[in-house]
């Protein structure tokens, strides 16, 4: 367990439910994790497992028909703990945290910027609301930020509209916007899925550099195990609203315990391991989110299913920091043979 003063944000038993058409979708159903200061936590998992909802919950950016049902999201700020789940969604305290203490970048930089305002205006907005800088200072800072993100001729590009930026440049601008107020935590929800591979690695390098320079904690949502291996300090694997396994990157990638983590790792090609990898897609598909299994969510697709799996497994911590939710985890431990 990391000491509390090393933790930037802790989430405990968080449940976020959606209510659509009188049906309840338990999108996030009891997740707990911590984001350590200056470290990167990667959240991985198949589409629809609740990664984005977890991120939106932390920022209180949930759509109107969803709400935090239970649990705590605690932001450990320099001036004491803030219980985000207790704040009003768009109230003053929440707004003071958004963009300033916790910032977010999104999946699609093509749609995440407002087409009718210049890049400079949109970055400046953050500074305007979270700092006391004058208009002139805001402009200078914006230009500096763009330069820092590797945008050439920032003095000119600052007055350009998003449509004249390429996808990669827009994401850089988004990062500039997110980093403008030196947030303690940066949440990146699949920030490179919409970009091509060469740009991807540049963006990640940039994020890594920023993390090192500013001590920003990063929560990175991704599908790409290669990225996880490269950037992550901690990893959490989500499946159907639960974190089924979590730990340091070494623990989870090298010694995965949960059958889902192991299946997931086998189902994804790893960059650099050549063409003849033994790739096995996970059998079956994710269940209907409105009609979830009662017990272990992965049970219907699991090769190791037993009767006990019809009951939701308890979370177990072992090796200090590795956590798993599986009745049979002991049999899968690396030293279990």
């Amino acid at each position, binding site marked *: 367990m990391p000491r509390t003063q090393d933790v930037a944000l802790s989430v405990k038993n968080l449940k976020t439910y959606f209510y659509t058409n009188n049906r309840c979708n338990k999108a996030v159903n009891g997740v707990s994790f911590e984001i350590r200061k200056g470290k990167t936590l990667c959240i991985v998992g198949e589409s629809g497992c609740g990664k984005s909802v977890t991120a939106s919950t932390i920022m209180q950016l949930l759509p109107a028909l969803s709400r935090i049902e239970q649990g705590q999201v605690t932001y450990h700020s320099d001036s004491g703990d803030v219980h985000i789940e207790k704040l009003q969604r*768009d109230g003053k305290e929440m707004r003071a945290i958004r963009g300033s203490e916790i910032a*977010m970048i999104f999946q699609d930089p093509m749609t*995440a*910027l407002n*087409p*009718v305002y210049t890049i400079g205006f949109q970055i400046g*907005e953050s500074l305007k*609301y979270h700092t006391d800088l004058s208009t002139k200072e805001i402009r200078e800072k914006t230009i500096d930020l763009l330069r820092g993100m590797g945008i050439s001729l920032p003095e000119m590009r600052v007055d350009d*509209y998003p449509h004249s930026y390429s996808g990669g440049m827009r994401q850089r601008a*988004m990062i500039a916007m997110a980093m403008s107020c030196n947030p303690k935590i940066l949440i990146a929800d699949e920030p490179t899925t919409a970009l091509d591979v060469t740009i991807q690695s540049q963006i990640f390098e940039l994020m890594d550099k920023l993390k090192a320079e500013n001590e920003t904690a990063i929560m990175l949502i991704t599908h790409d195990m290669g990225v996880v291996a490269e950037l992550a300090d901690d990893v959490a694997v989500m499946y159907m609203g639960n974190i089924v396994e979590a730990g340091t990157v070494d623990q989870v990638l090298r010694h995965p315990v949960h059958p889902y983590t192991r299946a997931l790792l086998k189902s994804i090609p790893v960059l650099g391991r050549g063409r003849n990898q033994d790739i096995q897609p996970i059998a079956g598909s994710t269940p209907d989110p409105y009609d979830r299994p009662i017990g272990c969510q992965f049970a219907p697709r699991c090769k190791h299913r037993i009767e006990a799996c019809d009951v939701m497994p308890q979370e177990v911590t072992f090796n200090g920091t590795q956590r798993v939710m599986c009745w049979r985890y002991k049999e899968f431990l690396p030293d279990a043979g």
Partner: protein
Amino acid sequence: MLTYVIRRILLLIPMLLTISFLVYTALELTPGDAVSALINPELASRLTEAQFYELRESYGLNKSFITRYGIWLGNVMQGNFGHSLAGGVPISTIFLDRLPATLELSLVALFFSTVLGCILGTYSALKRGSITDSSLTVIGMVGVSIPEFFFGLVALLIFALNLGWLPVGGRLLPGYETIWDRIPHIVMPAMVLSLMMTAGVMRYARSSMLDALTRDFITTARSKGLPEWRINLLHGFRVALTPVVVLIGFRLPVLIGGSVIIEQVFQWPGLGNEFIGAVRGSDYPLVMMIALFSVFTVLMASLIIDVLTALIDPRVRLS
């Protein structure tokens, strides 16, 4: 941007030519001929046969159809629109006389409906699902489906005849010319005329705003910690505005058509009123010129709207 405007203006020319040609053909088909309508009838009646022939010759009346069209077009472009059959007044004089009233009425109505429609539509979208929203939606539906003259008559009955708050009609009483004397006269016709348009703009602004609010950049704006008013107005409404302006452009002909009826209902001394009179009196030259003029206005308005749209949308402005 400048090339865009120039290209847009060049596009107007073939349209105007086609329409003026149609109007000219129609004029040729009506009793008398178009060019003789250019001559003051008072004068014509005093001419001898030979003088009249000479005059016809000088106007090119004995030339081919296309040449005559050319001559007529030249005259129209110099402001000689011909003469009304009733009283032989030059049509340009009628225009100068009546146009200010029509412009005043339609601009006030346009202003009302744009501002009111945008405010109500945006409000409705922001309070989506509330009672206010549902009532506005119902009112909007009624607004676009009931004809304006009906509203006009009801308004007259209530506010002018029963309550006596507002004058029954007309634009100005002789001798009362300050703006305070004018306002009571224009309130009712402008309101009634703008009703349908307001309802249309409101409905459109609502859906455009709802659409804008679901866009990703709204979440981005919220994630920056901006206050709600800024997210809704600066980010949402600003983006929702572009399609609304386009719609207003599309609806302008409706406003112009509506003003014909409303001017009649409220005895507003504008071109629309004149138009009805001209139709009743089979004053074809006048009817045709007013028609030509309204087409011209609609085209110019659509040009202005296009330029405006370009101005508020950087993607168009810069390409």
